[in-house]
């Protein structure tokens, strides 16, 4: 990897953009939710406040939520690429973004309770590397707040409550159950990422990977595409609404993926993403320069 400063600059810019502005598809989903809440003045009050906040953050170049979240980086690199140098440049970019106020000091030592100055620590940021045939480095960043992360859930089917058997109807019940348990605590209206199958660890990872999908896409697996639509429709009837204060905008989206599983296990894993759904991506050239912004 050559030109380390340029890599660091590009990665810093990725973090800055992710922190201060929502991707267009998410903001659009919030506007559509507002339009649908025509009869509920309280739900409208919250959604208008949320949208005003999005504009405010963009205009003032400040983090759109003060919980700048867990930093989930996913890299797609050319074969043989030096990922050690890439993660070092990313850590340096994270430290810089923290110093400049685009990230809060948001990383705590789990044993001593000490707060890290730069958000660089064992386990932070979170990296995932994959190799591919392309000549560019594809970087995706999701910033996921703690309040929404706390609302995640994993079910081992069959599961008596909510009466879920090992089929897609069981998956529907689990997801609706998780959304009902979350109420407004994950900063509704949110998006749920779901993984059917996998093991306990890969289930959570694949559920979060669903957040890389655009709001307007549909699963290529037709049964899952239908299930996503069905759960989204069901969720409007729960009445939880923005911040759990009532309304039809309980969810903005449902994204479901599936992994193979062992015969003995059938996990359904639900990851909750708040309305402050910060997701950005960038394609970087061989020298670390920006080729194209994604989303």
């Amino acid at each position: 990897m050559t030109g380390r400063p340029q890599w660091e600059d590009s990665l810093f810019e990725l973090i800055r953009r992710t922190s201060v502005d929502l991707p267009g598809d998410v903001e659009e989903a919030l506007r559509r939710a507002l339009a649908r809440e025509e009869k509920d003045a309280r739900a409208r009050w919250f959604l208008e406040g949320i949208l005003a906040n999005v504009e405010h953050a963009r205009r003032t170049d400040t983090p759109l939520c003060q919980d700048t979240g867990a930093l989930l980086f996913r890299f797609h690199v050319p074969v043989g690429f030096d990922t050690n140098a890439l993660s070092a440049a990313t850590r340096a970019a994270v430290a810089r973004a923290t110093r400049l106020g685009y990230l809060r000091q948001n990383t705590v030592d789990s044993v001593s309770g000490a707060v890290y100055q730069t958000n660089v620590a064992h386990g932070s940021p979170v990296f995932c590397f994959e190799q591919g045939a392309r000549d560019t480095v594809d970087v995706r960043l999701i910033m996921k707040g703690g309040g929404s992360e706390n609302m995640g859930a994993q079910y081992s089917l069959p599961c008596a409550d909510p009466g879920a058997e090992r089929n897609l109807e069981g998956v529907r019940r689990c997801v609706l159950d998780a959304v009902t348990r979350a109420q407004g605590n994950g900063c509704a209206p949110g998006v749920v990422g779901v993984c059917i199958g996998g093991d306990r660890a890969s289930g959570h990872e694949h559920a979060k990977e669903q957040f890389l999908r655009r709001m307007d896409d549909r699963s290529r697996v037709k049964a899952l595409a239908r299930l996503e639509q069905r759960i989204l429709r069901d969720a409007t009837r729960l009445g939880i609404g923005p911040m759990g204060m009532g309304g039809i905008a309980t969810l903005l989206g449902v994204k479901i993926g599936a992994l193979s599983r062992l015969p003995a296990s059938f996990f359904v894993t639900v990851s909750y993403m708040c309305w402050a759904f910060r997701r950005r991506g960038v394609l970087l050239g061989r020298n670390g320069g920006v080729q194209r912004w994604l989303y």
Partner: protein
Amino acid sequence: MALLTPRPLQHPFTLTQIRGLRLGQLVKVSGRVYTARDRVHKYLFDGGKCPVDLEDGAIYHCGPVATRKEGGWEILAAGPTTSIREEAYAPKLIEQYGLRVILGKGGMGPRTEEACARSGCVYLQTIGGAGPMLAAHVARVHGVYFLKEFGMAEAMWELELKDFPAIVAIDAGGRSLYRRIQQASRRVLRRLIEREEPFEAVRSGDADP
């Protein structure tokens, strides 16, 4: 509708004023509040000395993003954090310190509802995640306590609010909007599970060519 016309609420808060607030009333909070989240709550609950006067005052569940500027601090983001984590501590603090207002998000549990009813306190929900927009309602920073011990997010910030938007979600009678919505949503969930058409795994149109 009167509930949706924001009512001004100025520190120090009086018992009469707080008891007069109805569930679902929009308010604009002005004056002094103190941020407190997990560390400060635990510290005060365990009998730690409170450096400020909280009587007739407000606590805000918030870990702000702040930067130093000449002569003090600037708050860049000041949205709420999830309140339910303080459920074990809040009742004691409400009663011991005579708190009148708790600001946060997501609501509190039955013990806090009871404490609100007993001592005349309300819980106000503000807009979760709306950090910078809410920071624009922080007129100034009077000071900060426990910064070194607990860090920026967990420190106790003394803030002057100006027309800070919120809604009465637990009133001084201990009635909770969350409880109502939660109970209703659980009933709907039962209906969606037990009485609705189950999802069909296979449909003729699903098969890929």
